[in-house]
């Protein structure tokens, strides 16, 4: 992609990001500003879906527990804010804080560390075992937060967040907060694009294509897969942190195993192994989830078979249809 001769992929990305950038302005112009929080949520799930694409699309690791990292990120932010508001020390020593520099960083680091630990055990297995063990760990985390009565248990936790993020952005200002999230999404897309095309990214993709060959070439594959898994967990934690900031309320239901399933649906629906595809997938999924119920309360009876048809006949996803056939696997250019 040099000069002005842009390929279809680049065009698609430009048009999509431009549309997302204009979305709040259009919403205001059409008196739909109340929907901006809704749009932010879409972008937040898009970040989570992109993080899952790293392991699913590039690493070939079918994790059925990704929502756990999203949830942990969200809970860290919620708990720190809750303590700050109540002025109850955490672990009897630390005070909570509203400062997003602290809360969001903590969310990213801790969810990444948790992913590293879970990966340490899970990545010893392959195939069906891997799917099942990631699911089991996510259940463990889910029930852990259900058991935290002090933080609302099943009922969830309502908390006051930071009203002025980084001293710049007023969270009460829907549009400014939208652009912050949008900026983070763009940064994540750019960084992950660099990542998957780097040496590290090639190793991860090599493991997806043929791990046996990777080992025979001399790669200690485990550590690269683990690093990728932990990184994806950290990014999911970032998305979770944004989610908490967006909602000021969270409950364990955001990390229920079906939420992990939803994330997989977003990735595949949009186009796996393309990074931008999952953004489209998150858009499409949340759009369907919002609009299908308008037609029938039993929309799931339609949506379920749609998934089946997607798998059988449209495996390349929405973004995949825009690409030339040769570009099936992501990561080229």
């Amino acid at each position, binding site marked *: 992609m040099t000069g002005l001769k842009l390929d279809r992929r680049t065009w698609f990305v430009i048009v999509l990001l431009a549309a997302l950038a204009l979305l709040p302005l259009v919403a205001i112009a059409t008196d739909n500003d109340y929907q901006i929080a809704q749009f932010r949520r879409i972008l937040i799930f898009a970040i989570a879906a992109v993080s899952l694409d790293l392991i699913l699309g590039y690493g070939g690791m079918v994790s059925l527990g990704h929502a756990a990292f999203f949830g942990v990120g969200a809970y860290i932010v919620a708990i720190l804010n809750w303590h700050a508001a109540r002025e109850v020390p955490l672990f009897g020593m630390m005070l909570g804080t509203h400062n997003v520099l602290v809360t969001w960083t903590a969310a990213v680091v801790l969810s990444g560390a948790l992913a590293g630990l879970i990966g340490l055990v899970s990545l010893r297995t392959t195939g069906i075992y891997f799917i099942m063990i990631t699911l089991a760990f996510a259940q463990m985390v889910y029930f852990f937060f259900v*058991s935290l009565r002090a933080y609302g248990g099943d009922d969830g936790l309502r908390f006051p967040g930071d009203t002025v993020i980084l001293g710049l952005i007023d969270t009460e200002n829907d549009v400014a907060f939208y652009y912050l999230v949008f900026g983070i999404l763009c940064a994540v897309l750019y960084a992950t694009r660099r990542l998957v095309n780097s040496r590290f990214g090639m190793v991860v993709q090599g493991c997806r294509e043929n791990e046996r060959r990777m080992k025979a070439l001399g790669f200690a594959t485990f550590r690269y897969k683990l690093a990728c898994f932990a990184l994806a967990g950290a990014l999911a934690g970032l998305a979770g942190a944004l989610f908490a900031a967006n909602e000021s309320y969270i409950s364990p239901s955001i990390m229920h195993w079906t939420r992990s*399933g939803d994330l997989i649906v977003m990735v595949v629906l949009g186009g796996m192994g393309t990074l931008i595809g999952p953004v489209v997938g998150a858009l499409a999924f949340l759009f369907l989830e919002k609009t299908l119920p308008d037609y029938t309360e039993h929309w799931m009876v339609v949506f379920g078979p749609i998934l089946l048809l997607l798998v059988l006949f449209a495996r390349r996803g929405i973004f995949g249809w825009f690409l030339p056939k040769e570009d099936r696997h992501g990561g080229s250019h």
Partner: protein
Amino acid sequence: MSLLLFLEQTLNGLQLGVTLFLMAAGLTLVFGIMNMVNLAHGSLYMVGAFFAASFTQWTGSFFLALPLAILATFVVGVLVEAIALRTLYARDHLDQVLATFGLILFFNELTKIIWGPISIFMDVPPLLSGRVELIAGAPYPIYRLAVLAVGLAVALGLWWLIARTRLGMLIRAGASNREMVGALGVDISRLYMLVFGLGAALAALAGAMAGPIYVVEVGMGDAMLIKTFVVIVIGGIGSIRGAFVAAVIVGLVDTFGRIVPAQLGLPTAIAEMAIYILMAFVLFFKPTGLFAARA
């Protein structure tokens, strides 16, 4: 914990264990023989329970309803296999996860459409109502004992089927070496269909018997499904023996996990974590489960 409570909970744990075994036995074969991830197995459990509830209402007899529910679910299972799953065997695990995830949504919603969103409470059949004093001072529900007995009988029957019949020989061969079964000149798609139908029937039996103990409601299969996964993974994919051992262990751990933390003053939700911790522990030392069928 008193001895009586301990014995009672042991029986409860065993009863949950055999129910899990009924779920896991069919599914572990699907996993092992077809190398297929099927998330929709819990839906068959649910469908079996709803069929049993309706048939009991129509016929007035739980004992008539039970075989009818099993038969009906068997048909549903075979239809699902023929329509949706058969094309997925050759696909990768991700496709299977996604498609069967869609099936869960479909079945949950369809059940809601047919039976309505309200939970159904099934009565314990009169013949099996009441309690019996198995241990002096600890009357135990007869129905639960019956479930335990049926579960053990089916386990024994399955063992006979797997160990002593030609079909069982093929299933064993398929679980440890898929290519070989094809080489034996067996009609693979017939074998798959049979195995899947068998799994559906066992899930229906588990669901139908669970009906009078718990409550028949949409989504009842989901929680059961994940516990079943834990059983299968701990036992080793494709191994009936492993499924049995793991089911009993998981049933006991899960049951006592609900009692012990409460007695120690810990939140009971920690109990929900117990089986997953057990699973992580087992897989850390044996990444292919206790009795891996495939070498």
